[in-house]
């Protein structure tokens, strides 16, 4: 996607891991400071294609900052961010911003900002709205849609850009259970290999969540953050059933109550 303010150091593409998969992102000892606040501290992380990585942790643990670093919205104050240069990505926020315009034009605008001319952008936007079940709301003012519909619209805006990587910052946190299920179903669908780039092209997802049930259902790997540090980085089964560092164990226990 063009014109993204990438903040990575001018380093090379990340190296392949033992399995031969080239990571989409690699963070090496990344620090982010906001004045005295240490939002991220010496974070090492690799994300490979097809992964569904969940970021969990208490409020202020650095989940959103990590997503913003991955998307280039925040710059590391130390360390290196390497990324696959050909990968396209999109980000969803907890409360998506929609312009005072129709749902169709909001999606088309996202494409236009990515370099697609306006007319084809509107056609692609229609396909994206159909994909998320909002075709009938195409002409409706996006601001008048419900919270769940707006999040689905944001997913359509992201999906239309045919991303390889989808970054989601607590995408269902402010939704009612029904809307939550709808958004989750779309996330699962994209992650399972029904991305915009084709059926054999699953979207790699990195999402933050407080909902451990959702993490169980959607994630393939879980990273637990505390005070900006990665305290656990495990496959989803091991995170919920294996031994954990004490802080992560207490967090899971507390959140699962």
């Amino acid at each position: 996607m063009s014109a993204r303010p990438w903040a990575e150091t001018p380093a090379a593409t990340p190296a392949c891991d033992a399995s031969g998969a080239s990571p989409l992102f690699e963070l090496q000892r990344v620090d982010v400071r906001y004045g005295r606040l240490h939002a991220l501290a010496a974070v090492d992380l690799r994300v490979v294609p097809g992964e569904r990585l969940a970021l969990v942790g208490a409020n202020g643990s650095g989940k959103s900052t990590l997503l913003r670093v991955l998307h280039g919205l925040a710059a590391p104050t130390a360390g290196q961010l390497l990324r696959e240069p050909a990968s396209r990505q999109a980000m969803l926020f907890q409360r998506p911003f929609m312009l005072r315009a129709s749902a169709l034009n909001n999606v088309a605008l996202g494409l236009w900002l990515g370099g697609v001319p306006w007319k084809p952008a509107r056609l692609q936007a229609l396909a994206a709205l159909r994909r998320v079940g909002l075709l009938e709301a195409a002409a409706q003012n996006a601001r008048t849609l419900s919270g769940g519909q707006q999040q689905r619209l944001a997913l359509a805006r992201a999906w239309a850009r045919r991303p390889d990587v989808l970054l989601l910052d607590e995408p269902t946190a402010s939704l009612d259970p029904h809307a939550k299920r709808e958004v989750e179903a779309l996330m699962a669908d994209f992650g399972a290999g029904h991305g915009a780039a084709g059926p054999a092209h699953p979207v790699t997802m990195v999402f933050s969540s407080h909902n451990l049930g959702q993490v169980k259902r959607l994630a393939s790997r879980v990273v637990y953050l505390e005070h900006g540090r990665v305290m656990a980085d495990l496959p989803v089964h091991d995170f919920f059933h294996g031994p954990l560092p004490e802080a992560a164990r207490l967090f899971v226990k507390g959140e699962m109550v």
Partner: protein
Amino acid sequence: MSTMTQSAATALDLLTSADAALWTIVARSLAVSATACALACGAGLVLGAWLGVARFAGRGAVLAVLNTLLAVPSVVVGLGVYLLLSRSGPLGAWGWLFSFKAMVLAQAILVLPVVTALTRQLVEDAERAHGEQLRSLGAGPLLRSLLLAWDERYALLTVLIAAFGRAISEVGAVMIVGGNIDGFTRVMTTAIALETSKGDLPLALALGFVLLGVVLALNVCIALLRRWRERVDGAVTGPTIGVAA
């Protein structure tokens, strides 16, 4: 009957009898202020939107100057424009002094900081709330400023109305650069000042009524806009702006 009630009755007669002198002055006032606002808004909206998003060295100083200009008395603006347009001034060759154009220029300069500052505040608030999401879509500062200004268009309409209210109700600037020439540069506020000093209270009062009516109409417009926004968006998020005479 007291002088006041007599004057008010005569003023109402003037208003209802379509007095040509009175309505010519009203029309000229509206034309001067509308033209000045159109010019000031063309520049102020773009400049304010850009200032709301752009970050550069010295931005704080620019904002301090802008906020100071909000409080500049209209007579000071009039004096500045007078010096610019006077025969020995840098723009003296234009020959604009004591003309419609001079009054438009003075009011445009007076209103420009109002439009710029209010637009800057609106767009900056929107940028704080939503700028990151637009950045994530690939929008640079200029596009963000334009998109956010467009998104705040209903709130900006109220800014324009407020700016018009400021222009039409000022007296100092148009008095200095227009000269209050009868049938040529006389507008409502300068006419009120003159007629009051001459003791011709009915005409001054009639013009005062019209001026109040214009300001009332502007405030009704703002209220209707807000109500329309509520209907369109479901909720109002913009600031409350009113017009004072």
